[in-house]
């Protein structure tokens, strides 16, 4: 409902809430560092085409298995592809897939959680039980099944992530929503006769946004790990995709020849995950979220 008709009326969301968040993040050194790492990763990925003139996929027979040099800062792999280029482009892939997958998972999980918590009773029971059953199937098995059904590809990976993690997200967001629901402002809204979706959207979600954000940062780090593991096992990205997990799998036998080909994606992967974890930690601390509750999912 667009109610803000008077010109003097402020925006319907809390004024300065984003600014406040940025400020509270900057206050925490951990969070700042974490966000800096993540932003660095994003920048490097986005700027990959500018930062390097090599094609991440094109092979170059003449320059295979080169060690670090002026032409190839991090050397090349067995197919003569520039390791730096592949690592940078690998960031695009990792970030795009994992952030999309995480965002969709968190979104879906939050909506389900909101409905389950608000409706309560049998609806809640059914949702909780079904999601618990999904959680009871090992993540890798679920992913294997999804990947085997739909073949490989970015969207399949995203779907697989959603299958695996929606239950966990729902569990955590549900618990948080449960904390918010008994608050008096919810009671006031209920007493006004507001509908479920109105209450969830206006009253509940703005207050669990902290948790959802932290959840996002942390899940994203798990998703990056999971996707790279899947690629490592040969179920994720297909060659020649510059996927970090795949790069490790492809190049780990080159450890004694061109160690940078393996180390670069590992360092990139670890940097991103450390960044996401620190960001989640810092975010949690500065937003006053009990981060460890998150792990329970």
């Amino acid at each position, binding site marked *: 409902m667009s109610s803000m008709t008077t010109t003097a009326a402020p925006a319907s969301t809390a004024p300065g809430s984003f600014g406040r968040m940025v400020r509270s993040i900057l206050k925490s050194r951990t969070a700042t560092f974490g966000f800096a790492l993540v932003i660095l990763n994003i920048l490097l990925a986005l700027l990959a085409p500018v930062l390097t003139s090599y094609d991440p996929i094109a092979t170059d027979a003449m320059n295979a298995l080169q060690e670090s040099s002026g032409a190839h800062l991090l050397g090349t792999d067995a197919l003569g592809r520039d390791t730096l280029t592949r690592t940078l482009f690998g960031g695009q892939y990792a970030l795009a897939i994992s952030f999309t997958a995480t965002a969709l998972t968190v979104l879906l999980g939050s909506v389900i959680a909101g409905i389950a918590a608000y409706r309560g009773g049998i609806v809640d029971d059914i949702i909780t039980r079904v999601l618990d*059953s999904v*959680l*009871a199937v090992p*993540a890798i098995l679920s992913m294997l*099944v999804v990947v*085997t059904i739909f073949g490989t590809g970015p969207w399949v990976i995203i779907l697989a992530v959603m299958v695996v993690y929606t239950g966990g997200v729902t569990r955590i967001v549900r618990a948080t929503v449960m904390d918010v629901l008994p608050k008096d402002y919810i009671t006031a809204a209920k007493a006004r006769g507001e509908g479920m979706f109105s209450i969830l959207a206006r009253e509940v979600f703005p207050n669990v946004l902290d948790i959802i954000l932290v959840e996002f940062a942390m899940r994203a780090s798990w998703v990056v790990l999971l996707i790279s*593991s899947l690629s490592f096992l040969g179920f994720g990205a297909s060659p020649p995709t510059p996927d970090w997990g795949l790069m490790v799998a492809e190049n780990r036998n080159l450890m004694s020849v061109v160690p940078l080909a393996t180390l670069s994606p590992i360092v990139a992967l670890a940097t991103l995950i*450390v960044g996401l974890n620190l960001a989640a930690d810092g975010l949690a601390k500065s937003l006053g979220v009990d981060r460890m509750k998150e*792990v329970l999912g």
Partner: protein
Amino acid sequence: MLTFFAKRIGWSVFTVLLATVLVFSAIQSLPGDAASQILGQNATPSAVATMRQQLGLDDPPVSRFVSWLGNALQGNFGNSLVSGGSVGAEVGSALVNTSLLAGITIVIGVLLSLVLGLVAGLTRDRWPDISISTLALVGMSVPEFVVATVLVLLFSIYIPLFPAVVIAGQNASVAEILPSVWLPAGALICVLAAYIIRMMRTSVIDVMDSEFVRTAILKGNSTPRIVFKHILPSAMLPTLNVIAMNVAWLIGGVVVVESIFNYPGIGTLMIRSVQTRDLPAILLITVMSALTYVVCNLLADFAAFLLNPRLRYPRSAK
């Protein structure tokens, strides 16, 4: 309280059943089936049809599931569509191997991480905490395939202390596998411990901030007494769930590590069974994994019950 556990167990059974139904339905939509997988390049359409009939793949899914369930309840999980052997024996021996790995991982990993988490929590923001927390962060941030690869390079190739892979097969005895368990266990401990350490640290800090610990300090109690009598039992409570989740995770999470170490466990079997569409094997693996999941959670509930007097002695008969 009996009803509390009866209800929990009831839900657990339901969860396992539902998980099985979900996996069964998902496998139905896998392209190709065991018949064509078995026949491979010898597959002529008629041979596939015959094989399908032999394997009972032509019956409607619901009736197949019901008959599977009926047999499963009598302990008969069917025969592998690939090897023809009893799935029970196959999954059983893989599970025993994985349990050995998981067991060692859990015992060492959980004890180690509880101690480290406790120390980190108690020395909040001082150097032991900072080093332990950093270590845990690294553990969380490095994929297990990297940890495993590094461990192999270091401890079986450069310094040949441990076997690099498991040579013994699926039916090997514990004694045969035991020497090969340590490196995979080490890789798993790194991942497992990271989360438990962090959980333990946070909950120790939470408990330390509580009124009752403050009161205990103001009573002039000694530090060990405060730690072990006042902090530890309460700090363990939220950690239990994380331990349970992680232990349950181990069953599926071992896949990567098993693959690197050629470990003849449930993870390896899982991948192979999905690839060969070996439905009876997949279903049994699902059942066992789901059972592990619910049993871990039940155990966590039970441990919480023992640790938490509020659960043991509910205040009133409400």
